[in-house]
């Protein structure tokens, strides 16, 4: 239990309506989108302004209360599960877009602003905020920055990190720390923003985020190419890049996923195809025509069995609707969905996809793979029923084998979903013990009481 005096203090700072102590309310802040055991916090708090946010952080530190920040709770690695209890801090009342500056092309937002809301507001001003995670209709920008979220446009436009110009955040003591600026160039101080992006709430709590905006592309053109052979699809990806074309999106679906999507949406996808590439080029109209022509040529030359170029906006929407429905089509097949995001250098995609198919056979579990072929970020999606203990063990074995394979190909455990608790015990495999020790020392220095989202990313102890 939280001691009553402290509870009263929280109530004074936030207003009683923003302090949640009922078991039923607390239970709803015990999970996120990762398939992991839930942990119920002792308290949930919802600050409504910077001032109260800073005071809550300070009070938690003074009372050695673990503090887990929660945006929309859609992360896939357990980042918002309050594994050591304590406080869950909700950011969704901090949801103001503070400024959209068209002249200097930046936006300043509070952390609880929903990604798609910012994207729409920016678009209304004739500008463009590219990072578009699949969860953008609900995910918060605070969560995006803390997870370094990616999206479909990563290949050409980069990921969240590439748009963070500056941050103002609170350290464990609740002091305001400022890094970066509104200017395109900034050479003062350490690049703390670089460290904080992807820190999953373990190093500080974001209060204001300054994001870079860019002019939108004038034109887009989408197409999809059908391959009866996985290698040809990959060769095509490699060839497109080798010809110095950088599509805005270059997505891939394997046969299992194609069949699931077709069963689900009857979009007319070729169910016998080994792989499907969905490609969009954008930019200046002349350039788009030229690039689209080249991509089409390369697809045919390397051996696409068919290729369809979207003639208008409606056809383009159809192409992307098929891709967007991949996860839900798969999700409907089995009760439990484990969405992984092991990532390899893009030349290694065929090998990785083949490995995943082998692992699926060996472990006798269903895996559909789709993902961002352009940047090597695959989403092997495991379909199972977590109530089936025996199968669940095979699922865990399969996940570990997938990680090992990705690492052996020079890849990484996670392209965009973060480490959280789900992958913290595998991190050493990727980085080595020294890296973990180094990271733990940074954490210990910045958060001596270890209150900020403890155990995430770098795991348990401070002893090794």
């Amino acid at each position: 239990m939280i001691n009553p005096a402290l509870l009263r203090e929280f109530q004074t700072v936030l207003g009683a309506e923003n302090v949640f102590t009922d078991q039923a309310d607390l239970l709803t802040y015990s999970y996120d989108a990762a398939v992991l055991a839930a942990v119920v916090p002792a308290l949930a708090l919802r600050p409504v302004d910077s001032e109260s946010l800073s005071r809550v952080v300070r009070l938690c530190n003074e009372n050695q209360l673990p503090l887990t920040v929660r945006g929309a709770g859609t992360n896939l690695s357990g980042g918002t599960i309050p594994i050591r209890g304590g406080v869950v801090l909700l950011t969704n009342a901090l949801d103001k877009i503070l400024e959209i500056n068209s002249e200097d092309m930046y936006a300043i937002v509070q952390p609880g602003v929903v990604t798609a809301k910012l994207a729409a507001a920016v678009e209304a001003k004739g500008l463009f905020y590219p990072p578009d995670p699949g969860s953008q209709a609900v995910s918060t920008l605070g969560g995006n920055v803390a997870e370094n979220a990616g999206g479909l446009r990563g290949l050409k436009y980069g990921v969240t990190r590439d748009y963070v110009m500056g941050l103002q955040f609170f350290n464990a003591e609740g002091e305001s720390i400022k890094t970066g600026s509104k200017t395109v160039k900034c050479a003062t101080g350490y690049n703390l923003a670089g460290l904080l992006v992807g820190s999953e709430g373990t190093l500080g709590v974001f209060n204001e985020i300054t994001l870079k905006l860019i002019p939108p592309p004038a034109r887009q053109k989408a197409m999809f190419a059908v391959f009866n052979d996985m290698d040809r699809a990959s060769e095509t990806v490699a060839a497109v890049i080798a010809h110095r074309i950088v599509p805005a999106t270059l997505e891939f679906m394997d046969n299992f996923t194609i069949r699931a999507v077709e069963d689900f949406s009857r979009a007319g996808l070729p169910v016998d195809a080994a792989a499907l590439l969905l490609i969009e080029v954008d930019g200046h109209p002349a350039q788009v025509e030229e690039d689209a022509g080249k991509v089409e040529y390369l697809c045919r030359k390397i051996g696409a069995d068919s290729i369809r170029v979207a003639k208008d906006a409606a056809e383009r929407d159809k192409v992307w609707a098929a891709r967007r429905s991949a996860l839900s089509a798969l999700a409907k097949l089995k009760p439990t969905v484990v969405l992984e995001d092991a990532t390899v250098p893009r030349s290694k995609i065929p090998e990785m996809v083949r490995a995943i198919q082998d692992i699926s056979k060996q472990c006798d579990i269903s895996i559909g793979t789709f993902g961002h072929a352009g940047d090597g970020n695959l989403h092997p999606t495991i379909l199972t029923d977590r109530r089936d203990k025996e199968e669940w063990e095979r699922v865990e074995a399969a996940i570990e084998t997938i990680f090992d394979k990705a690492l052996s190909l020079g890849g990484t455990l996670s392209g965009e979903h973060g480490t959280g608790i789900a992958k913290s015990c595998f991190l050493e495999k990727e980085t080595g013990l020294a890296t973990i020790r180094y990271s733990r020392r940074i954490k210990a220095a910045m958060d001596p009481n270890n209150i900020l989202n403890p155990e995430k990313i770098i795991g348990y102890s401070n002893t090794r």
Partner: protein
Amino acid sequence: MAVLNDKRLNEEDEMPKIKALTKLMQELEDQLVVCMRCGMCQAVCPLFRETGLEADVARGKLALLDGLLQEMFKDPQGVYDRLNKCLLCGSCAANCPSGVSVLEIFIKARAILTGFMGLSPARKLILRGMLSRPEIFDRAAEWGLKFQKIFTRPANEIIGTSCARFVSPLLKDRHFMPLATVPFHRQTASLNTDKGRSGLKVFFFVGCLIDKIFPQLAQDVIDVLNYHEVGVFMPQKQGCCGIPAISSGDLKTFNRLVRYHLEIFDAEKFDYMVTACATCTSTIKKIWPMMADKISDSIQTKVDEIAQKTLDISQLLVSKVGLEKGGIEDSNTAVDVTFHDPCHLKKSLGVAAEPRALINANPAYRLKEMPEADWCCGLGGSFNLQHYKLSSNIGKLKRDYIKASGCSVVATGCPACMLQISDMMSRSADKIVVKHPVEIYRELL
């Protein structure tokens, strides 16, 4: 560590009871496990948009039910309260990537928890004492009418709403549609006409709101059916479809109403059952079959048959009868009308094009879409009574969307939405008329 999250309640003696509840909840397990906690329902939940509380969105409620089932905590009352704070609008289910049967789970869970906790005395009085007995309900409404004249005064003449003459704890500051002076069943007690050139005969299920508040709409339906020479069977003493009962978890009253109607339906053969109330249609088509196995196998068979035949009036007219086309629209005189998609039509039944087709058939109107036409109006039946402030805030958003369309008429296919929208428009002193698409279509004939 200063804190532990272990807030175990001192409820040793509650254990056997909780075990019994867990057992009852087990029938929901296979459906509950389908939720992958992705959180995408946050984007579409009208309630969550207002409150931002996880316990208000489908994911949170499903987690609570799961928590009870897994005995993660022991607060059935807490879960019950949160479960009841929901519009049952189905926006979450319609957009769920994993295909969770959210409404089915919620409705079944409400029934289980109500059975376990007992119905509150006030609800018992209304549901068991009145709703389950159509004659008593009719009489009570007539009494209500007498009181209405004394206690209320007209509020907005264009919309036709009233408000309380003096501060009333029940009416609050509502601008409600008054009970009709003569309910429909007093105007036309029963009908049984033969099929004409359409070759179709339908059962017309009137529904409480249309009978008691919008009787003219029932007349419009009859006029339209007559025009198309569709035979109408409308026996005496129809009652309520049961939605207020089942959404309060009152299985007993609901079952009684289903049984009661099945007997009435048996009296005559008909091709389709139609209603002009999206809520009645969706209740009969979706909820009756979902809950009927609790009554008996033979009832399940009958209910399935009825559900198969049940259509919204706009579906019948568009796809079974064929619409009359009314010439070319005169852009100088055509009245701009916008359409609000009732959740029970679009999200529950996938019906959105048909009511629009009724409007488009009449050249005196020009359909102009509002932003987010399928955003819930916020009524949610008893939700409005229990959470009036929230319901109003959601309704206010709808009102703003309607206003943004710039139209002077708003049409919608559910009398419950008509009530809520009337309340919201009237309180903002808007001069916008609320109509049903059938009314617009009838004006053409």
